[in-house]
């Protein structure tokens, strides 16, 4: 929307919902994406989940950095599932990479050292691991009634999308710490 006030023109930001049919993404060498929306080609395009805890494919912000590394949002995609065929794959793959988050499939044990740390022995889809979690009151928590979200001391993030699907022991272990 442009407001014309005594010959001064100001650009007001608005929510710009992108039409999934017109978008054409491709992976570039930089690890980011290139986007052709039919009018313009953007490079170093970044996708961001606006509601990462709530949905993995809906409300994806599409932005790019210009040559001066200034951030510009191109718009928001309501749901990348509406992208055309291979386009979905590219976008989803990028998101999965950016939000790389191994899924916890089992929790063997949780040890509280009574000094604000816990050590969680887990099995994830990226292998077995003992997670060292600092300040666990805030870094080991449920973000919905069923989803567990964990950030370890290095900053790696782990999730368990549905704790109801875990075995009984894992569930009990979680129960006592969230």
């Amino acid at each position: 929307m442009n407001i014309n006030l005594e010959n001064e023109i100001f650009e007001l930001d608005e929510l710009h919902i992108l039409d999934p049919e017109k978008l054409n993404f491709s992976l570039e060498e930089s690890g980011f994406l290139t986007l052709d929306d039919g009018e313009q080609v953007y490079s170093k395009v970044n996708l961001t989940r606006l509601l990462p805890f709530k949905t993995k494919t809906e409300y994806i912000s599409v932005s790019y950095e210009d040559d001066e590394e200034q951030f510009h949002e191109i718009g928001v995609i309501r749901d990348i599932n509406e992208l055309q065929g291979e386009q979905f794959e590219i976008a989803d793959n990028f998101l999965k990479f950016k939000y790389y988050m191994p899924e916890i499939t089992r929790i063997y044990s949780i040890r509280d050292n009574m000094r604000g740390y816990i050590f969680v022995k887990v099995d994830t889809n990226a292998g077995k691991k003992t997670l060292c979690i600092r300040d666990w009151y805030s870094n080991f928590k449920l973000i919905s009634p069923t989803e567990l979200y964990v950030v370890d001391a290095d900053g790696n993030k782990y999730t368990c999308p549905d704790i109801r699907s875990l075995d009984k022991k894992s569930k009990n272990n979680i129960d006592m710490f969230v």
Partner: protein
Amino acid sequence: MNLKLSTPKGEENATFSIPYDLNTRTKKVNGHCVITDNEIRIYLDDDITEKYPLDYFDEYICEQLIGCSMLVGRKGDQRKFLCAFTQTYFIRYAELCKILEFYKRTGELFADDDQSEPSCTKCGLPLDSETICPFCAKKSEVFLKLIKRAKPYKWLFALALLCTILTEVIWIIQPRLQRTIIDDFVIPRNKDLHSFLIICGMLVGIILLAWIFEVVNMKASFKMALSIGKDLRQEVFAKVQKLSMSSVSKRTTGGLIRRVSNDAMKLQEFISQNGKELIVRLFSVTMLSILIFVMNPKLALFVLAPIPIVIFFNVKLFNVMSIRYGRVWRMSTRHSTVLHDTLNGIRVVKSYGTEKYAIDQHEKASMNWAKSIRNADIVWLLTMPFSRYILSIGSYLVLLIGGSMVLDQTLTLGQLVQYTTYVAMIYGPLGWLIELPRILADTTVSVSRVFEILDEDTDVADSENALDIDIKGDITFDDVYFGYKVYNPVLKGISCEIKQGEMIGIVGHSGVGKSTMINLILRLYDCTQGRILIDGIDIRNLSQDSLRTQVGVVLQETFLFDGSVYDNIRYAKEDSSFEEIISAAKIANAHDFIVKLPEGYNTRVGDKGYSLSGGERQRIAIARAILHDPKILILDEATASLDTQTERNIQEALSRLIEGRTTIAIAHRLSTLSNADKLIVLDKGRLAEMGPHEELMRNGGVYYKLVMAQRQTTKMKEVID
């Protein structure tokens, strides 16, 4: 930092070699990024997949994403993805980028020689700046620590203990007298009134004595418990004051309040009610066990046999209970957090009319708390009757067998009565002892929460021979890196020099790290890398006391303590006279409005007192800083809530005041800073430009754009107004 963790097979020239563990399809892989003295080589397993001369790229960037990070090379406008890795390696890659940047500048591949990364000898976990491995630290020790707290009161404790034991002994003697009465007087129908009265007198006497002991005991234990409670509360509070900002801010205020008040209280209760009791009960169980064993070993066996079973069972139960009580603790803390949050933000709640939401939130937290208690206690309530039952089986057996022994005349009736009295007595302390896991579990949680604070090493600690100096006011940033989280740098490679007496402005977009720079100067946090020098001395070698008494700050969110205007200004300097306070208020342009307040300088402001406007609060804060008379004055958006006129007045007054002092100002309105000697322009965590206003305007860089952008919006505002 160790930048040569492991090398791929067949690579012999690696100067640095860091593993990477992801590919762009989010598969776990096993690769290495190797730097030789002239090449960067990317390995997948043990094969080179890509290699470039080190000079090929203009810049190496460690790009942090959400769940992983990647190393990217930039050549002109082109960027090339090199490898991806989980955050575990992020710091190392970030370090590597710095080394490569240095290489690009100087042509030298130079590594920080300090490769020592201490790790725990037991489990191998890295010990980043902790003294004991958090994984291997024992938790049983916390109770010992609690007991050590009682040391100053050991005489009181001894007195209380002695009295209780004496009382206990009396209760053991008493059945012996009863037995004499029954066996020597009642059954043989003995009419020796004299001896009878003596024994009765003795009975009354010892009961009186017991009563006296009891009173002394109560007084002594109460005094001790209250003192320990007071000490603990005070100590936790004092420690919280001394902790670094990062330690304090990672805990919620509700959680901290809880520790100072409830947890310390719980420990006090534990000591007053249970600590001594525990010793006494153990003592009486042992005494009574020995007694009944000596009196009749066969009967004693029946009584004592179930005890080991119950003990075993209870130890197991303790573990379960302590986890569950830990949960209760968290739920109650969450409840206090909700309470604290809502009450603090009551203005927002009311102005948005969201009372109902607040009430719901509270109800939820409250319910969860109640639920967690129920969850913890249900285990207890379900298992408790069972333990008690097992325990008391013995007493029935004693009656059965003892009764038949009386009939067989191998035991006198008096003996049996005495015996069963002892057996009954043993169940008292035993019953109490099996309650112990619950009490202990509950207390363990509080003990560990309290000691978690007391034992925390302040990560911003004074060095051993910290200097107390008179600060002149030179400040140097020497290649400073800092992030609130290690893996998320906010300031990157800041280097600049501020001379004594200069007025410096820091500008940049909001969130770029301006306040962070201030926090570092104040040493609320320590920088992750690089140094900050004041008068040529690393601030880590200055005592924090000397640093902070000579640096004055006015922040944007000013906080007024509950108290009068007078108290709030005087806060900066306890011993200042009233006249000094007034002149400070005058300089800060605060005097005039204070005069108009109903009770002048005695008007109560702060938490729930007379509500001042944002600008008025800021002026009080400025007065506070002026009174502080600092060598270095820091104004972090200090005049942001003031109108332009007042701002100008204050500035004028300040400029008289700040002569000869180093001043660092952050202001949103850039015009405020145009008379600064130098401006430091931050952009994306780096120092983009530095110089006086005119020079920067001529350069047409970041600052120029900031100013232009602001002029535009100001114009717009003027038009709308």
